[in-house]
């Protein structure tokens, strides 16, 4: 029965989805590669080769975002993995209030990023913010979290971790729960302690979960934008600018070609970092 009619009939069903995918995803992607090499005013364009890329890479206020983006991605990713794993272990135990604590940890994930950003920028106000008021109460002079260019980026990264660690924790809990009981029994027979349980069973066997978290958090960190924009708008000066926020500012200024070039650069950067990372992590996975 597997005739030509039959096959083309089923292919027809793919068409609507295919068209939507082509018009809204493939076409813009292809066009963006083209427009990144033009001088563009949305209605009018002129081909200028790689000029936009040269501008983007040679200007200090533009390429400051590279360093920041990498720092931001690495810091948020690392903290989410470490804290997520620890919380995951803690919350997959048979604690009585575990359901409640799990929801507490997951709760920030549900909040709007912009709302979180605005709330924290108020909390982090150097003289009237609650965080510094609390620190002052125990005799510590809190820093200017978002105004000091040395720590502003880290402050934003910490808020990102606070907001994102819930999701990482849930993934870890799922991973830890799926480890069969046999391993723990074997450990008990061999006389292993709690540390062995953590280091020799949970860590290696929750590897798939860890890889998911690393990839999600790392890519999320690389293209992060909303939180930084809500908290600092890339400031003071350019000190917390990420590639995405720089692109947005170029777009706002009406430099459409230049901002498209920035997007292509971001695309290449994410691909260059994420694919090898993904391949590397997959090789290290252990079968259950």
């Amino acid at each position: 029965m597997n005739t030509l009619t039959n096959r083309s009939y089923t292919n027809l069903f793919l068409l609507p989805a295919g068209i939507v995918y082509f018009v809204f995803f493939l076409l813009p992607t292809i066009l963006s590669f083209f427009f990144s090499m033009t001088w563009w005013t949305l209605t009018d364009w002129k081909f200028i080769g790689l000029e936009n890329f040269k501008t983007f890479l040679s200007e200090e206020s533009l390429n400051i975002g590279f360093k920041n983006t990498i720092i931001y991605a690495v810091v948020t990713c690392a903290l989410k993995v470490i804290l997520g794993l620890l919380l995951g272990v803690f919350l997959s135990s048979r604690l009585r209030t575990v359901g409640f604590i799990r929801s507490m940890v997951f709760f920030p994930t549900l909040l709007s990023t912009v709302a979180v950003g605005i709330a924290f920028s108020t909390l982090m106000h150097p003289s009237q913010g609650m965080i510094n008021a609390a620190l002052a109460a125990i005799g510590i002079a809190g820093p200017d979290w978002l105004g000091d260019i040395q720590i502003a980026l880290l402050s934003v990264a910490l808020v990102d971790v606070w907001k994102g660690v819930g999701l990482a924790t849930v993934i870890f809990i799922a991973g830890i729960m799926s480890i069969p009981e046999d391993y723990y029994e074997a450990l008990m027979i061999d006389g292993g302690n709690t540390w062995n349980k953590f280091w020799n069973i949970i860590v290696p066997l929750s590897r798939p979960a860890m890889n998911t978290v690393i990839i999600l958090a790392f890519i999320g960190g690389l293209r992060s934008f909303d939180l930084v924009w809500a908290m600092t708008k890339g400031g003071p000066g350019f000190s917390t600018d990420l590639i995405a926020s720089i692109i947005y500012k170029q777009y706002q200024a009406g430099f459409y070609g230049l901002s498209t070039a920035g997007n292509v650069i971001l695309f290449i950067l994410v691909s260059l970092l994420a694919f090898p990372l993904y391949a590397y992590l997959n090789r290290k996975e252990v079968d259950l």
Partner: protein
Amino acid sequence: MRKKKIFSLLGSTVLMAGLLSACGSEEGSSAGGGSSEQTTLTLLRDTQSSQEGMNAVAKLVEEKYGIKTEFETRPGGTEGDNIVKTRLATGDMADIAFYNSGSLMQALNPEKNFVDLTNEPFMENVMDSFKETVTANGKVYGAPALPVSVGGWFYNKKVYKELGLSVPKTWDELMANNEKIKKSGKTAVIGSYKDTWTSQLIVLADNHNVIAEDPSFPEEYTANKAKMATTPAALKSFEKLQEVHDKGYMNEDFLATTYDNALKMLAEGTGVHYPMLSQVIPSIEKNYPELVEDIGVFPQPGDSAEKNGFTVWMPAAFYVNKNSENVDAAKKWLEVYLSQEGIETYLSATKPEGPFAVEGVELPDDVYGAVKDMMPYFDSGKTTPALEFLSPIKGPNLQQITTEVGSGIKSAKEGAKSYDTDVEKQAKQLGLEGW
């Protein structure tokens, strides 16, 4: 049979897409009710500018011609630029657009998007210095929407009296005043860099001094023959900003202070100077009406007391959308707005923050004290438009760069240099010659 199916599928997809896109554009035109005799104009304006005057005139237009006005709002600043540019590019602009004059307006491609108002009779009385800022290729596109405003140092007169200070005529006198205010324990200069745009004021309001020293700067700057960093007069603007920071005259938490906080400090006198635009006055009137007469203003001084004068900001303008179906109604709207009757209506609804860009308009006697401070400079012609009205180039990152200079991350020279590379992008985007 099968062909039919393909077509119906394709058809439904197209219909779907059409439906979706229609959702976006309908809100503006349908909401005003559909009767064909009555025209409803849409007007897109920002949320920051004074609205009472416009609303009053809109009512007058409705009474006179039965033309209703529906105001659409957008944020100000760069977010607003975005919305305006996007709506123009997608053909979704309101009938009348409220938008900046000067360099920002040049970036909108006015010839393509707006109706030429050069020969409209209602434009006759509009000041030439304003017209210049809404002119592209010899054609005038905008009608002044608000009074002219100045950029200068707003100060608290009460504190000035308490400390026995007098209005400074030179930069050195201003710095001496700052020193005394600092010693008295008050904030000498209010910084509100949480709203980054406010960090630009010391640099921008210095243009009168720049031009006084180097009159040909704007042309040479536009032609890429002069740079900020290498023109001493222009570099001085950045140095003034750096000096204010280096001497510690600003409030300690200036990076976390907002424009609204700053207004409070100025009104209550905990902060004494605030380099700002005239919009400060109506905002203080709104929030601290009993304190508004404590506020005065003086121009940012230069080296010589004789050359003292204000840097002025030409007001935003109304532009008529070329693709609008109601061009005639929109012109009528503007005609009323700029008529004697319209301006009187405007003045009865709100006190102006400065003189109008229309000739022959007398301001009432009960204007704000700060406006009275400005008038002598206008009457004697000691005003210069800000650089953004004399040259189409304004780099988009100036507010980040002035934040850097004003908070000591960069020196004045470094800041001026990075601004020079910043404007390069703008000049290239505009396709100017010599870049």
